[in-house]
């Protein structure tokens, strides 16, 4: 039945925009005689998958840029070193400006998040690649790490005063309990929006490109389709950076709340 349905689908336009997000074991061959793709089931915790591969490539890219790119330690930087310094200065300034001077200790942590997200996003734009940041499993972990860090740092640094974050002292007294409820809800929604924003943006862009690519099967539409893919790709390049930036700056904003909870 399933194969039959699949076969009927092959006749017309074929859209599988979400297939690109499927995890698949590496070093594994699919037995074509079975309907099930053996590589996509029973993925254990330590199995090497395409997701693992592209995470590893992100690590390689980060090391290539930040370590090998700066190995000459030149006073007058070359191209690669300039980019590494630019990334350093960009995130450092963001942490200092948004989260405050006392947040500089968190700079390596925030830099790690930024470098991973930005490289995962850009590597995901390569044709045939896998976007690790399009998976909620990844972004939820990233967002929860930020959420837990912020909450723990907030209580450790400020103690019970951290709860002042929810008690808007500048509002009229009657409004404060209402505002406190809203503030608490918004505080706990943060990791949700933080993670879904990133994965949603990346996934949506890739899926739209895939849909346009499906339309290219019709000869008459294909020029439009190719132009649309090109345009979307340009937009996605922008989104890849902007989402990494947004993720990082929000982390800084949340961190500022933890360090200076007063409104």
């Amino acid at each position: 039945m399933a194969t039959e349905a699949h076969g009927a689908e092959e006749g017309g336009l074929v859209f599988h925009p979400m297939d690109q997000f499927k995890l698949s074991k590496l070093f594994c061959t699919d037995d074509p005689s079975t309907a099930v793709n053996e590589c996509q089931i029973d993925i254990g915790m330590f199995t090497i998958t395409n997701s693992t591969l592209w995470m590893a490539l992100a690590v390689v890219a980060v090391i290539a840029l930040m370590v090998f790119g700066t190995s000459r330690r030149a006073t007058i930087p070359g191209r690669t070193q300039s980019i590494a310094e630019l990334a350093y200065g960009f995130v450092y300034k963001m942490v200092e400006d948004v989260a405050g001077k006392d947040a500089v200790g968190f700079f390596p942590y925030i830099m790690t998040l930024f470098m991973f997200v930005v490289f995962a996003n850009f590597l995901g734009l390569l044709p045939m690649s896998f976007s690790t940041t399009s998976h909620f499993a990844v972004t939820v972990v990233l967002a929860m790490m930020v959420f837990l860090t912020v909450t723990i740092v907030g209580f450790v640094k400020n103690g019970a005063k951290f709860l002042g974050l929810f008690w808007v002292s500048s509002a009229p007294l009657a409004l404060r309990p209402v505002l406190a409820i809203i503030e608490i809800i918004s505080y706990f929604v943060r990791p949700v929006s933080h993670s879904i924003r990133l994965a949603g943006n990346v996934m949506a862009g890739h899926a739209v490109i895939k849909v346009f690519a499906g339309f290219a099967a019709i000869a008459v539409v294909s020029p439009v389709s190719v132009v649309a893919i090109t345009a979307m790709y340009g937009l996605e390049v922008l989104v890849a950076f902007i989402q990494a930036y947004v993720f990082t700056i929000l982390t800084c904003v949340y961190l500022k709340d933890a360090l200076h909870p007063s409104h």
Partner: protein
Amino acid sequence: MATETHEATGHAADAAASAPGMPQLDFSNWANQIFWLLVTLVVIYLVLSRIALPRIGAVLAERQGTITNDIAKAEELKQLAVEAEDAYNKALADARVEAGGIVADAKADIQKDLDKALAKADAEIAAKAAEGEKAIAEIRSSALKSVKEVAKDTAKELVASMGGKADAKALTAAINARMKG
């Protein structure tokens, strides 16, 4: 039907993947992704915090130091240049004054020489003029004498031709009287 149920159970694990759903919501592979993500983040964190960030920070600090030093050095050199310019201007002014002195001295010398030469020339000219005057006077007096004699002779001849006998004394007196007028 039997095969259908069998296939359905076989697909159970693969349900999210084969159905037109989101692979993101297939929670069976979350453990895998989360594990490898944590590995990735730890590796990046260690590389950045141990190697890359201190290195880049050092390079940036060093560059800042170099720039500050270079600016200070440039300021120093600029000060030196200003001093050198002042010294040059002073030397120039001194040289101008000295040159003015030398020119004045030379002028005075030249004037002295000139005056001397002029005086000498004047003296020579005066001597020459006196000589000339003397010569002219001589010539004039000799000419006068000749004229007197010619006149006397002419007058004597004239008187003789007119048939008279010329009184030499009267003739001379008459001629002298004429010559004076």
